[in-house]
């Protein structure tokens, strides 16, 4: 066991390049052009290009939800192939090529984005125990779609037009799909607000109770939109009705006693089909070519995921008050996404290949204008899943589950406890470390075990300590590669070698090395994506 760890820590593996023409190149060029001309126009100078280590850590976290293990870091840093970044992107998105050059899918991508979409669309299932049981079901369903790279419009259609929970003849799949309606309590107004916000990027629910003087949407419009969901029977009502009464396509605005019928956001009248849910008609309108919201919202949200801020931000308040920072970029990327057949991997690949994505997060000249211009990568929070799985990756924690085997609900497992403690539905760019989390990472059993010099408790540390041909500097370097995916700077190396060789505060150089490991695992550099 120990030997295999040592082998993994020192081994190098040669890259096997498989060159391939890239259909998304032209779109990446367009994106780069728009970003660069805005830099010029606004007189902003961007941060430096991220080095290989910084890029590698970021793209691992963003695409498969964890940092790379030491061995892969060494391989990548040593690799001299000029195309190694785009190859890494493909490895993470499509899986590493086998002997024949075929890529057989990326379990990490599937598991990570399954979770990310659940956070996005079913935030209630992350925070509200009443809905928690739906989360894993939905996530499983989502993984299947990601595995098959189901087009985005198809996924949204399945969710928006899903059978309500408890409808007759449900399969596990259709039941998982009811989750979206269920967490919105099957209430027309709640479902409408969520559909509009999440799939169209338009927050209309403020108009639910009354018109707001400076907002675009009127109360009438809100209830007209909600009428597409009028046939749904809210949960918790003791009525014996079908789960959806498809013939109902109008609602009465509470308190006004005014009846309104379903109407699209652009004011057009829908043409309903007999005995077909209004939601199907709505979905046809949403995903029709030329719909001004649908593709743009998807692109904007995906952009915000990778950059910590959308091209339109707040994400769901488009309008004169909140114009896009790069309108033409948003337009071009939305068109390309639509033309790709709503191919999520295509969109992801374009974004992470762009110059802006590959900028450093450190910029001594950083200012508010750098942010709005995507001239520096923001420091973003990790989901609790990303943080735990990165801990596992950094430390060779024994309960390591491969991403495709990750358990969802295992309350008594280290992962389950950790996720419960670190759970949040805040936007990742706004995530703040809490005092409680700091205490857990400093003093909690998990990190205490992982940073113990007792070889039975810490796999990686034991491996580093016991590698016979490592000197102190190499040991420290290995810890840096494992935890923060980079080599230490000469200054850091000098400082820490001195600390370790002197035996730190305990006079024991093994413990002093464990201290370095402890400090790394508690650092911002580990705890965030940057």
């Amino acid at each position, binding site marked *: 066991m120990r030997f295999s760890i040592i082998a993994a820590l020192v081994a190098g593996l040669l890259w096997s390049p498989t060159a391939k023409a890239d259909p998304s190149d032209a779109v990446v060029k367009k994106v780069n052009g728009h970003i660069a001309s805005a830099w010029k126009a606004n007189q902003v100078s961007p941060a430096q290009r991220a080095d290989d280590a910084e890029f590698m850590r970021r793209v691992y976290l963003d695409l498969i939800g964890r940092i790379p293990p030491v061995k892969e870091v060494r391989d990548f840093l040593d690799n001299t192939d000029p195309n190694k970044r785009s190859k890494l992107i493909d490895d993470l998105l499509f899986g590493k090529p086998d002997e024949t050059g075929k890529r057989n899918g990326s379990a990490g991508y599937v598991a990570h984005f399954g979770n990310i979409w659940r956070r996005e669309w079913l935030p209630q299932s992350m925070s509200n125990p009443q809905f928690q049981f739906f989360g894993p079901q939905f996530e499983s369903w989502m993984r299947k779609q990601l595995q098959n790279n189901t087009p985005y419009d198809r996924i949204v259609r399945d969710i928006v037009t899903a059978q309500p929970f408890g409808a007759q003849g449900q399969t596990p799949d259709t039941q998982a799909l009811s989750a979206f309606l269920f967490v919105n309590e099957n209430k027309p107004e709640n479902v409408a607000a969520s559909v509009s916000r999440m799939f169209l990027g338009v927050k209309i629910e403020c108009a639910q109770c009354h018109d707001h003087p400076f907002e675009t949407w009127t109360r009438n419009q809100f209830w007209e939109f909600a009428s597409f969901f009028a046939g749904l029977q809210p949960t918790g009502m003791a009525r014996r009705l079908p789960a959806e009464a498809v013939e109902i396509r109008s609602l009465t605005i509470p308190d006004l006693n005014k009846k309104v019928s379903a109407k699209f956001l652009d004011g057009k009248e829908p043409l309903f089909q007999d005995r077909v849910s209004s939601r199907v008609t709505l979905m046809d309108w949403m995903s029709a070519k030329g719909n001004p919201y649908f593709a743009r919202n998807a692109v904007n949200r995906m952009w915000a995921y990778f950059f910590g801020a959308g091209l339109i931000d707040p994400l769901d308040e488009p309008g004169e008050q909140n114009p896009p920072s790069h309108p033409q970029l948003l337009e071009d990327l939305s068109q390309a996404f639509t033309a790709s057949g709503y191919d999520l991997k295509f969109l992801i690949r374009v974004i992470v290949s762009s110059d802006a994505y590959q900028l450093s997060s450190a910029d001594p000249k950083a200012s508010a204008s750098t942010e709005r211009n995507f001239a520096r990568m923001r420091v973003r929070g990790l989901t609790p899943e990303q943080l735990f799985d990165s801990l596992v990756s950094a430390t060779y924690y024994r309960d390591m589950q491969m991403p495709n085997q990750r358990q969802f609900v295992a309350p008594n497992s280290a992962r389950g406890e950790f996720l419960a403690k670190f759970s949040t539905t805040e936007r990742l760019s706004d995530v*703040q*470390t*809490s*005092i409680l989390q700091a205490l857990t990472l400093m*003093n909690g059993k998990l990190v205490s075990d992982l940073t*113990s010099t007792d070889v039975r408790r810490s796999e990686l540390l034991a491996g580093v300590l016991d590698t016979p041909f490592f000197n102190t500097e190499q040991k420290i370097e290995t810890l840096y590669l494992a935890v923060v995916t980079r080599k230490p700077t000469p200054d850091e190396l000098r400082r820490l070698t001195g600390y370790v060789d002197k035996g730190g505060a305990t006079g024991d150089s093994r413990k002093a090395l464990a201290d370095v490991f402890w400090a790394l695992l508690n650092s*911002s550099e580990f705890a*965030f994506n940057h």
Partner: protein
Amino acid sequence: MNRRRFFQVSAGAAVGVSVSGWLQALAADTAKNPQRRRSCILLWMNGGPTQTDTFDMKPGHANGGPLKPIKTTAPGLEISEVFPKLAQQGKHLAVIRSMATKEGDHGRATYLMRTGTLPQGAIQYPYIGSLIGKELSPPDAELPDVVAVAPFRFFNFGAFSSGFLGPRFSPLIIGESAFGQAAQPGFNYEQFLKVSDMDRPGDVDPAHHNARVDLLRDMERDFSRGRPDTPALSHQAAYERAVRMMKSEAARAFKLDEESDKLRDRYGRNLFGQGCLLARRLVERGVPFVEVTLGSVPGAPAGWDTHGNNFDQVKALCGVLDPAWSSLIDDLRQRGLLDNTLVVWMGEFGRTPKINRGNGRDHYPNAWTTVLAGGGIKGGQTIGRTSAGGESVEERPVSTPDLLATVCRGLGIDYEKQNQSNVGRPIRIVDKSARPITEIL
């Protein structure tokens, strides 16, 4: 009430208020007693509490419902029969029956009531806990300045954020994941009131711990160079606060078992009751702001959001609220802390006076009630009046800024003080439209 009348009334209330006057008085007071420092305990009623069944009853009216008013120790002040114990504390209560706000959405109203403003573009307004925590922070604070017990942040995360005041004043949140579970019978609340991992691992002595933290500080300093992002700044702030708390004697505040069984029973053996006891222990140790959320309880899983079956749910909620709140006031008084501790009771809005078809009450911001007690507040009185059916405010409408300014003044805070915001312009603690309720100060 029409708009013009509203302005006349609120302008009238401002006459005779001299800001410098009370500031001088405060300064004199502080000079007399340099140790004096006030605290605030917010009892947050998640979901929007009904006023008609609690503090603004309408007996005999169709809107009134089945609950009956009872007398309190304050002459003329009547409150609901669901508060037999609180009625004994009536002389401390200032009941504001004329809250008039405009927001009926949980998320926006939660933000409004807790920050004093509606969400506006890029400005990250701090919530009132962080604002108060900053103003009243003891210079040598070992405990966090802001503690939130069992909050339900899901309605609006920003409403629980220190916003542009930065992570230094963000709340220590404990018991957050209790929502929902708290409604289950036999719910183990104790674990939600603990701060876990407060002690060093057994094999790490203090000098060793300090050496590790020093290594970490070096790494943080290097990383934050050129990365002025909130997440990383919050990380450093959280670690500094955590390290300080680990070394603090005051962290014993969390050891509720130091209290007698009798007192613990009086507060109620549940999350909210023991949360209120914890609040007292924290305030005693100088924490300026503590909030305790009353959300789901057995019999009312959605907290105060009583759209259906309102009356049974109100009874369930007040079965928890009445002993906790009354014990808190009494306990603070016995310890000589009540004069320095302002206890605020509020939610994001009230509920419709009209009873709906499901025997419930819906969201209602037009006319509702909040209650203040203790520090700096003249108790035993009511402010404002609603119409016979409770649908509208007929006297002394109180806006969100009015209320928050009153709270600040009760705490001796200059609510017109400005903080530098994240958009580069200074912003007052409370909006300049605020007219504090001088009658109760």
